[in-house]
């Protein structure tokens, strides 16, 4: 039994604690930066402090999502509980980060056209370094369990493979992008590091599915599955903090380069600033022709320092934006795919359908839907057509097993019996709503007479099962009935048995 007898599961609490620590720290630093900027009258410091504020907002979003997601039970408003909140929090954070990148990009472009000098570079270096420290602390905070967890998860998975446990390891994405893979590795939170070996573990980079039917009641652990969706949420936060850290690095680098290489115009005396030509700078009291800089310096008129220094800032910003976008895009894509209710990557719908149809007693399968609620909670529904209730009873358990093997543990199977059905064909759903509701059903409609089997996909009648059952060489055909007598293994696309698109 779950030894986590305490009411509150540990993982979300750890996450909350860390988020709140980071939140407090960041907000504090934001206040410090604002004060310093007022004292030193530095505009750059003030605008940098608002980057911290955006970090604070991202952390708040993540915190709210974590709080919500702990309520996994059904309520009046949401029959699934609020587990999905973390996925949505990840999406919001990713979009937020993209928007920030966009504004940084715009600022950088403006800086290219109108370079700014940095006022008081020493102060900027100091505060920038402090900000970098805060951000590195944050990175460590959200990295913390990752390193150990990663090691544990691999070791643990070896152990579990030999054990008699059923577990599901959900990949957090393609694992293609190397950088992303690294990040997701570091975000794996693994309870086995805290609770010993009787754990169910999740959230590694590769998707592994191990079906092992033996039941081990002692190993039941209720709250571990949330790791995968919580992981998405943490990834969003991590990317924000990473962006901020990169920003601080750029600030420090830029300010120090500026400090060492830039020859500023002295406060008094004539000065010429060749880098900025069309606007008046406070110290540029002379506007000589551009190619006489050397002449000028010989004449004692000071020429402001090398121009490339001014362009360092926007170029570094551009690089940072590219890095951030590259790392944010996978997170965006993944959370969007979950919210769109696509089939999880590790599940092959075709083969699932095939396995179901192969079962003895199953005549047809339609309305097969598989989607991911959040994390490792995958939900499936199907309508199974059998000959009569007795034959359904025989296969019911096998059907559940097939789903279980794929990692789909929450299923709703609706049996339909062709013996009690009317003249409808094998492929047709026995229990559609009324005919006029056809348009409001989730998956298109099958108007009884209007929609005979045609060769093309019409816009009305798009049955879910149709596309799924389509074998590759029959892409354009509307699937017909899976007329499977008990022994036949494959559904032949028999032109004669062209039934309507099943509902």
């Amino acid at each position, binding site marked *: *039994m779950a030894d986590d007898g305490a009411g509150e599961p540990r993982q979300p609490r750890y996450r909350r604690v860390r988020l709140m620590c980071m939140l407090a720290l960041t907000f504090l630093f934001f206040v410090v930066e604002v004060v310093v900027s007022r004292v030193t009258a530095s505009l750059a410091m003030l605008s940098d402090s608002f980057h911290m504020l955006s970090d604070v907002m991202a952390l708040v979003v993540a915190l709210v999502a974590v709080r919500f997601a702990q309520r996994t039970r*059904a309520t009046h408003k949401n029959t699934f509980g609020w587990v999905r909140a973390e996925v*949505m929090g990840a999406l919001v954070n990713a979009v937020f980060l993209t928007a920030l990148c966009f504004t940084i990009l715009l600022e950088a472009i403006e800086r290219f056209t109108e370079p700014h000098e940095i006022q008081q570079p020493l102060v900027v270096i100091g505060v920038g370094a402090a900000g970098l420290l805060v951000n590195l602390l944050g990175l460590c905070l959200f990295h913390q369990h990752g390193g150990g967890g990663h090691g544990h998860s691999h070791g643990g998975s070896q152990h579990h493979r030999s054990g008699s446990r059923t577990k599901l390891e959900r990949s957090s994405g393609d694992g293609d992008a190397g950088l992303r893979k690294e990040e997701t590795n570091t975000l794996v939170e693994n309870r086995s590091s805290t609770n010993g070996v009787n754990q169910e573990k999740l959230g590694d980079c590769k998707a592994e599915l191990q079906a092992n039917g033996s039941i081990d009641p002692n190993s039941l652990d209720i709250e571990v599955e949330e790791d995968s969706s919580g992981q998405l949420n943490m990834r969003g936060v991590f990317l924000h903090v990473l962006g901020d850290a990169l920003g601080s690095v750029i600030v420090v680098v830029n300010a120090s380069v500026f400090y060492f290489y830039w020859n500023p115009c002295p406060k008094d005396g004539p000065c010429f600033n060749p880098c900025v030509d069309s606007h008046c700078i406070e110290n540029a009291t002379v506007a000589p022709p551009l190619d006489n800089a050397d002449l000028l310096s010989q004449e004692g008129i000071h020429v402001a320092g090398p121009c490339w220094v001014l362009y360092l800032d926007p170029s570094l910003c551009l690089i940072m934006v590219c890095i951030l976008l590259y790392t944010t895009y996978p997170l965006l894509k993944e959370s969007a795919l979950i919210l769109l209710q696509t*089939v999880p990557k590790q599940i092959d719908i075709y083969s699932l359908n095939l396995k179901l149809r192969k079962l003895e007693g199953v005549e047809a399968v339609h309305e097969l839907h598989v989607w991911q609620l959040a994390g490792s909670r995958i939900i499936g529904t199907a309508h199974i057509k059998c000959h009569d209730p007795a034959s359904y*009873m025989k296969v019911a*358990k096998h059907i559940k097993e097939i789903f279980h093997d794929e990692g789909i543990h929450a299923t709703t199977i609706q049996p339909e019996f062709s013996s009690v059905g009317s003249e409808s064909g094998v492929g047709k759903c026995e229990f559609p*709503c009324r005919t006029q509701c056809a348009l409001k059903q989730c998956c298109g409609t099958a108007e009884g007479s209007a929609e005979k089997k045609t060769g093309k996909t019409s816009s009305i009648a798009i049955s879910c099962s149709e596309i799924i059952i389509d074998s590759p060489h029959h892409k354009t055909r509307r699937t017909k009935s899976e007329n499977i007598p008990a022994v036949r293994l494959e559904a032949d696309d028999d032109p004669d048995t062209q039934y309507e698109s099943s509902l």
Partner: protein
Amino acid sequence: MGRYSGKTCRLIFMLVLTSGFFVAELVSGYLGNSIALVSDSFNMLSDLISLCVGIATGRISRRARRGPGATYGYGRAEAVGALSNAVFLTALCFTILVEAVLRLARPERIDGPELVLIVGALGLAVNLVGLLIFQDWGSCCGRRQPRAAAPEQLQAVPGPGRAAAAIGVFFSVCRIYTQHRVSSLNAGDSLNTQKRPEEQTVQKKEKKSEALNIRGVLLHVMGDALGSVIVVVAAAIFYALPLDANTPCNWQCYVDPSLTLVMVVIILSSAFPLIKETATILLQMVPKGVNMQGLSKLTDVPGVSSLHEVHVWELAGGKNIATLHVKCQTTSDYQDASYKMREVFHEAGIHSVTIQPEYIDHKTSELICSSPCISKACASQLCCPQQEVAVTHDNGCLEKNGLSPTLHKNNSINENAVEIPIEHTLAGAVIKNTDNCKKSDDKSYLHSTHF
């Protein structure tokens, strides 16, 4: 995939207009050396991005083909796109807010107010055109008749739009052209459902949800319009009351930032409802039009002993889906009950229902699912936890309280409570079967689906 509707027409038109104006503003900003113009042109760029997102998600969601990647199709793409647009706008508002605060701390005057005034007015004109184009989605969608009949289409140009009659005519032409290719979804509607008021309500709901996409774009356009208004007002003030370079900033310099603050408040207050609405869809919440209490009629259906794992959610565009498990005594019970239950759902507006029958096994409580997954270890991966905080008894048995939403039926078979608890707190009080230890449950798992 080539299904065009008036929506896409408008979006593309707006896209072309906005990009043209963006380029024009950028060029003139560089030529005239005005930073204000350049930064205003970047506002247009954010508009462009939101339009692109709107068009892209619109096309994705209309994709008819449902491949192995998505069993429900991509209808939700519009909701995701609308959420992205709203969040994007919120983030932009945040940066605008920051700049306004900075400006309040350090006021600056506007140089060259004439140029700014002219270009600002042009930008405002472009944005107003956009607002007019999209305004029938911005306002309440229910006011208009669903587009069922062609003659109605022609009159569908909204009232105030008559001021922009040329554009209105253009779009009605657009709509007539697309009418021939419009999905027979709408045609089917017109044929069958003209007489049924309830169906029309559903249609309106559909339109409203489909319009999520457009609403996201509309928010951006509105934000941009407000920005242009502020630019025009501030530039007009500087034009009418010119400020020398030498005099310090007076109240005139504070007009711009303070109006910007007001604008941010307005935009945020209109973005949040959109975020809430998309959240309702994306978080699988119970759709607004569905009353969970109303579904308690399900327990009155004869043959139904109890229900559990009731889930109701909206896919997108008014399509509601429900799944549930029902416990019956016999198979014939189930078959009779199934039809009647669908009637109840139909009345509630839910037309895609999947019902899993379970037959009563006297070893298990009525409230517990007889056929969750095949092994205990999966409990954490079920969509909804079957057990609460582990209430362990002395003998180590775990009491399983059916926490998935459960509806009880008051009949002689069920000696448990009578009420209809949806929330877990009540369910916990109901179960009295202390003999439902795991051992018996295990057995019941093996036998529950057998009759």
